[in-house]
């Protein structure tokens, strides 16, 4: 029972938490490993140690998302009136949700 602690809301199992912690650490390392190896990252061993090539070409999907952002979204966000437009869109959304009978059973 030494591994259990009760704090009102939670009952903590220290052994369980140690497991979760190790799992998280492994997950963390796994993501770093995937990122380092997959995104056109080059390992260079030299006097300065091991470095990662900064911002490789990125995956195909990421490139498509980036294109979508720059071609479709960015022009709108660069407009000065985009704040007022956003407020207007949100207001319309709320009015539709509040006053329309669509979607109510």
């Amino acid at each position: 029972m030494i591994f259990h602690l009760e704090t009102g809301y939670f009952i903590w199992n220290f052994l369980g938490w140690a497991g979760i912690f190790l799992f998280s650490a492994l997950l963390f390392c796994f993501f770093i490993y995937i990122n380092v190896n997959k995104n056109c990252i080059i390992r260079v061993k030299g006097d300065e140690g091991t470095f990662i090539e900064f911002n490789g070409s990125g995956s195909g999907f990421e490139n498509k998302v980036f294109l979508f952002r720059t071609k479709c979204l960015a022009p709108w966000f660069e407009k000065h009136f985009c704040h007022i437009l956003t407020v207007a869109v949100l207001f319309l959304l709320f009015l539709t949700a509040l006053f329309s009978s669509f979607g109510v059973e």
Partner: protein
Amino acid sequence: MNFAYLFPAMPLPVLSLLLPLGAAMALMFIRVYDIWADKYEKARFKITVNQRPLKIFFFILLLLNVLITFSIWKNYQSGGSTFYILGSNGWAKTLSGDPAKKMWTLVQVDAFGAISAVVMGVIAFIAGLRSLADKKNILDQSKVTYYLLTLCGIQGIFYSNGLLALLIFICLSQIGASGLFHWADDSYDGLKEWLWYFASRMLIVLMFLAGTLILYYKYGADNITILSTMIKSGPPEKLAYALLVVPLLFLFIKASAYVTDSASRCFFAIRAQAAFFVILRIVFSLYGLQEGLEKIPLLFTGIGLVSLIAALIFMAKENDPIKIAESLELFMKGFMLAAMGISLSGTYSAQAAAEYGIGAMESMVSLWILFLPVSAALSFICCLLKREECGIELWNTGGLFRRMPFSGTALFISVAVIAGLPPFVGFSAKQYLYRSANYISPFLTLMLFTCSILLLAKALFYAASVMFGRSRGAACENQSGLDAKISLPLLILFMILTFATVAPGKTFDLLVSPSVHSLMNRGQLINMLQQEDK
């Protein structure tokens, strides 16, 4: 009313509002007076505020603010929810803010407001510390004035229980925060951007005013506690709902323009937090479960999901650390909105509330409390990475972990907290949310979980690239000690986060649970008093 009564036996919440307001007004007066003396060449009448006294003054005010808000919170814990009323005989403390007595219910302190004010006060103090040490963005008289106005406005929001009072404090915080934003160049384009910015802020204030007036003319009251006992579902009330919620929702999602000053970014984050506070007050405390609002939970969840996806899109191939910080903040906001939608949906029936409603609400409040410290940490680190040294911005120089190990570690931990990676503090909140979302739809849980994983992968890649990546340009030879610039504020922030990580039960007991109870206590106090009268 005799205004002389305003000062004797002044309650602490009022003092906490008047202190920054008075200081800001004094500084503003000196500034206007100096401009006048310059214009009419009366140099001998000019008042010069030196940098050092100004910094000491600012530091003392922020420290006092922390002490006062902490003291209010401690008093609240032993004293219960209280209204402070200014009558003809001075200040009085009561349990009910009845407008029929023609008294001014100026301030209300409940658990949610008191906790919010403490969290905000601590973050404002930390931001102030960073601002005092910042040699690139020098703290001047105008900046201190705007910081203090924002502080007063936001504190007022936390201690207000009337819609009109909220409007006044929203205006004050707008003046303060808008003062921190000014166009960088004097070009026509810059002026146009500035004018559109102010037009949008005016629209926000006018919308909130219109919503307040609709409710005031229909029910003759603006006090949220009293209104909540009378409000019925009808077209004017629904229109008022949209007019009150939409401007704050916009302020929450789009809290600031592109700012590279970390202290100013913290104050913008504080304003976003305050905007969400007002939304919660209106949605949970004022309206609650009215007929005709059944689709609102879905709308909030939908906006939350859109924010999550938008945050991921904005992070695609992004290198600018400030924009990365903005995307991470948007991600946190998306989760908060989704949690709000789920909690609202979970409060429509007793069974739903027992199964997942309260859990979702606790998740929402803990995400909301977590937002400010994490956002402040991101601001400090990302603004430091944006700093230009020897003609190149720091994030470009690569291999930064050797030169700033503390900030590097803090960046990785912040990412883990935002993504809800166990055992960090964000995990408990996310765990509750996934469980609650599963009651609505497993697909929703899957969406939320996938977004978290994608963000974790992308943000870790970015952090790894900046901290361990190869240089893109020639770095300065002597760039050691970069950590020293932000180590103290970061240390305080991580002491808070570590406490919350190590003792989540205590954090829930102290902060989350009282806030949820306070939000749910919609008009019950007034009903109880009315029943006792009968």
